[in-house]
Structures are given as structure tokens and as C-alpha cells.
């Protein structure tokens, strides 16, 4: 291959590029990124960056020397609009057409939004610019924040807002936060974390609409002009919540719109095998956009690790390796570090191994009916968690 184009310049795209180089690829490497920023780390955006403990400079995923060593052509602030596999051409928003031999799809995911007119004061949180805009609004004295969605992003944002001294309400449509991820018992633990810290948690109700407060303010997206500012949130059960700032954290969808009609198979992500290889020759997918072997992970660790495997497969022209690591993620909220590894099924039961939710420090294992462990969860127990995670990985290996 003479040219490989990596579409998406975040964690997965960067690590695909690093892996291509470390695997010996010395041809042209093109990095396309919609954002103007060089690759940066997203997890702190809802935490240390939002509270002001970390600056943007500290989020960089590669320093100047590493960028130079990568020897890539960076096309930032531009989007890929289309991919034509037969002619091996990538089209950019500005009309440019790039010829390429290999393609790494790493376009990630975009936050879901609520229907209705855009209102100032309503935020999603995915990019550095998103986080900077939200941080700015949180820096003008105490405000009333409504967080819609009590998933990990919502919980972390609520925690950061509470740390900053704001009045915070979290609205969750399900009966408990993180119910599908953690099950009822541990979901109750997560609900308690909110209320422990003076955050109001409203569950079992969705949001019907966001309403303006009647004032107008400068558009938050920098596009000029004015837009109405959010004033209150109308819940599905008829209640209304006054709001100065609204953060919508209701999940993401894979950024695949631009691939419609390209011949790349799409099904809640780019369909690929466990090695990131798509059925289209010369095209691999990594990170949040990839639906690998029927599963689309939205985890930082797989976005960092799987690209190494996909890069090898791309260079080999076929799947010579698969990525089989246990799913793993962590979340920092209200001073608690949660870590979860494995794949919990809905029917699994949870058993405390040490500590207790009441102490806000524990290790728990999820098990099937027959006692087979499927996942481990820890709160502020990093070392026991590491041991349990390794044991789980070994058990999984033995079971294969």
C-alpha cells in the first residue's frame, strides 16, 4: 500500500496510525479529523476538565515529537463526506477527493439530541469544544443545571456540576440509573451517589420538551445571530423543572451517515469482524464506530487497543488476528472510581466479594445461574478489581 487514510483523528484513529507505523508501514499516511484539534483524550472532559482541574493542553494524546515521528498529513477541521471503495476515493466536505489504497474508519459516534428548536444553554458533551462551552456557562456563578440521562456521562457531569457548587437535577427515563449496565442492586448504589451529594435524581420519567425562557442570547455555536435561551424542562409526567443550563446525555449513535450508499455494510455501526476487517477490501473499522463481531463497544480501552489489531489486518490484507480482550471501562463520579469488566447479562445475579455499597467501597462479581462469573464491578477497590479482572479474563480464555 502506498497511501492509507485514517478517517477520524481521535483515540482510535491515532492508535491505528501509531500501529501502522510500528508495524513498518512507511507509505503516505493521511489523518482526517472533523475537529480542529490534534488528538486529545475525551474521558476527562466530563470530569477534571469540566471542574477546571485539567487544562486542554494536558489532554493531548501525542506531543509534538510523537506527531513528527508519525509523519502523517493532517487534514483537520474537515470531514469525510463520502467513500467510494471501487475507485478507492475519499471525498471531503470542501470537495477535495483523495485517492487511497487503505482506509481506517474511525469516525466515532455523535451524541443523541432531543427534538425541537436548538436553544442556547442546552449542551451535549462529546468534544473539547462542547466541554469548553459548557465549562464557560458553569463559570458564571451558581446556576440550575438539569442533566437529562443518568448514564455514565450524565452522572459524571452531574458530579462535576455539584463539585462546582451548582444546583443539579438529573432526569432518567428508566426506573434506576444504569439499570441495563449494572442491574437493580448496583443501580441503587449509583442512585444513592447522586442523592448523597445533594443532587436531585428523578427517575421513571422522560422529557417531553425543552422550553425557552423568553429571553434571547447570542448563539452558543458561534454561528452569529441570536437564539432563544432555555428556561425550563417539561417532563413526560407533566412536571416542569426550571433550568439555566441543560446537559443532554442520552447516548450516542455511530457516525456512519456519510457512509450511506458506499457499499460499506452498516448496522448500528460499521459491520466488521473481530479483527476490525470489513467485507470491503482495504477497509477496516475501529473505535466507537465499529460493530465488531456483532458488538459495538463505546469504551476507551477498546478504542486504544483494537486499532493495533486492525492495523495488522489492514496491512496483511486479511484477518490474521482478532481482538478478544474483555470489555472494560471505568467512571469517576462523586469521588468514587467505578470499574467494570466483562459482559453482564440481564439475568445474572450480583454477589459481593468484599466491602459493601454502604461503605462506598466494594468488589462484586456478576454470575450466571450456574455460578459462572460474567463480569466484575468495583467501587474504590482498584487492586482487588485488577486481580478479579485477570481471573475473569483467564476463566473466559479457559471456557473458549
Amino acid at each position: 500500500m502506498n497511501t492509507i487514510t485514517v478517517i477520524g483523528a481521535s483515540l482510535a484513529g491515532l492508535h491505528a496510525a501509531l500501529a501502522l507505523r510500528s508495524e513498518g508501514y512507511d507509505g503516505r499516511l493521511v489523518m482526517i479529523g472533523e475537529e480542529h484539534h490534534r488528538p486529545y483524550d475525551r474521558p476527562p472532559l466530563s470530569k477534571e476538565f469540566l471542574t477546571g482541574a485539567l487544562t486542554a493542553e494536558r489532554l493531548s494524546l501525542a506531543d509534538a515529537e510523537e506527531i513528527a515521528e508519525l509523519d502523517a498529513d493532517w487534514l483537520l477541521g474537515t470531514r469525510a463526506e463520502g467513500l467510494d471503495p471501487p475507485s478507492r476515493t475519499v471525498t471531503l466536505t470542501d470537495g477535495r477527493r483523495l485517492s487511497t489504497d487503505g482506509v481506517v474508519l474511525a469516525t466515532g459516534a455523535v451524541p443523541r439530541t432531543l427534538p425541537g428548536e436548538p436553544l442556547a444553554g442546552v449542551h451535549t458533551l462529546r468534544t473539547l469544544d462542547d466541554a469548553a462551552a459548557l465549562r464557560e456557562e458553569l463559570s458564571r456563578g451558581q446556576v440550575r443545571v438539569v442533566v437529562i440521562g443518568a448514564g455514565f456521562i450524565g452522572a459524571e457531569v452531574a458530579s462535576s456540576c455539584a463539585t462546582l457548587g451548582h444546583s443539579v437535577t438529573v432526569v432518567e427515563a428508566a426506573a434506576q440509573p444504569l439499570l441495563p449496565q449494572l442491574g437493580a442492586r448496583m443501580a441503587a448504589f449509583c442512585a444513592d451517589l447522586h442523592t448523597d451529594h445533594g443532587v436531585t435524581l428523578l427517575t421513571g420519567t422522560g422529557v417531553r420538551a425543552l422550553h425557552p425562557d423568553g429571553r434571547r442570547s447570542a448563539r452558543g455555536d458561534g454561528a452569529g445571530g441570536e437564539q432563544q435561551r432555555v428556561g425550563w424542562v417539561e417532563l413526560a409526567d407533566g412536571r416542569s423543572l426550571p433550568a439555566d443550563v441543560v446537559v443532554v446525555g442520552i447516548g450516542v449513535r455511530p457516525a456512519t451517515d456519510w457512509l450511506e450508499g458506499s457499499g460499506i455494510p452498516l448496522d448500528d455501526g460499521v459491520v466488521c469482524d473481530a479483527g476490525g476487517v470489513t467485507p470491503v477490501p482495504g477497509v477496516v473499522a475501529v473505535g466507537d464506530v465499529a460493530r465488531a463481531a456483532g458488538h459495538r463497544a463505546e469504551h476507551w480501552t477498546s478504542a486504544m487497543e483494537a486499532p493495533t489489531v486492525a492495523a495488522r489486518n489492514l496491512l496483511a490484507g486479511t484477518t490474521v488476528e482478532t481482538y478478544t480482550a474483555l470489555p472494560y471501562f471505568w467512571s469517576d463520579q462523586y469521588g468514587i472510581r467505578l470499574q467494570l469488566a466483562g459482559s453482564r447479562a440481564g439475568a445474572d445475579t450480583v454477589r459481593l466479594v468484599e466491602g459493601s455499597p454502604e461503605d462506598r467501597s466494594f468488589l462484586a462479581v456478576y454470575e450466571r445461574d450456574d455460578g459462572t462469573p460474567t463480569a466484575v464491578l468495583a467501587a474504590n477497590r482498584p487492586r482487588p478489581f485488577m486481580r478479579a479482572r485477570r481471573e475473569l479474563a483467564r476463566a473466559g480464555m479457559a471456557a473458549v
Partner: protein
Amino acid sequence: MIPVCRIEDLPAGESVRLDLEPPIAVFNADGELYAIDDTCTHQDASLSEGWLEGCLVECPLHAASFDLRTGRPTCLPARKAVRTHPVSVLDGTVWVHIESAQPAQTSHTAAAGQGSAA
């Protein structure tokens, strides 16, 4: 020199965290004692809580791995080294000799001067 603990309180495979500024982790790696800055250079996590295997410690948060002998990261996501500190045992007590507040050794000179622990 700062006293850490009695040698018998730091058996092989164990670690001790010293709550200094910045915190320091002391490890017993199969009988050899090592001290490094405790905070992973990648993100805020305590290496004393990490997984010890030979002379390598794996960060409990993102599995970055550091060589206790040099402080250098052996794999991503960490890219900067942690500082190392000499350790000695006198009359059964483990002591750590804190290196002055020099910037951490970095794997790349361009990043020098960014400070030590993240």
C-alpha cells in the same frame, strides 16, 4: 531520607504508598525494593494499587506499565516516565531517598519540563 516501614511489613509482591507531595510508591518485587512516583503519568491513578509482575507495575486504571528500575513506561497509554527514588534497608527499616523536585525523565526530550506526576 524518609522511613517507609519495617522490611517484614513489605513482603514480596506488596507495595506501600507514602502520602507525600507528590505521593511515592515503594514496591517489593521478588525481594528487590523499588520506589517510584505513585501517580501514573497518564491519568490520575495510584500505581501502588497496580499489578506487580517482575519489575513491571501495571496501572490499575488503563493498564499502562512501568519498569520499576527506570521508571520508563513499557507500553501505552503512558508516554512519560515516573521518577525513581533510591531505597535502602537499615536495621530492618525501609528508607526511601527522595530525589529532588527534578522534572520526570521523559521518553521524549520535547516534553521535558512538564513536571512529574499527572
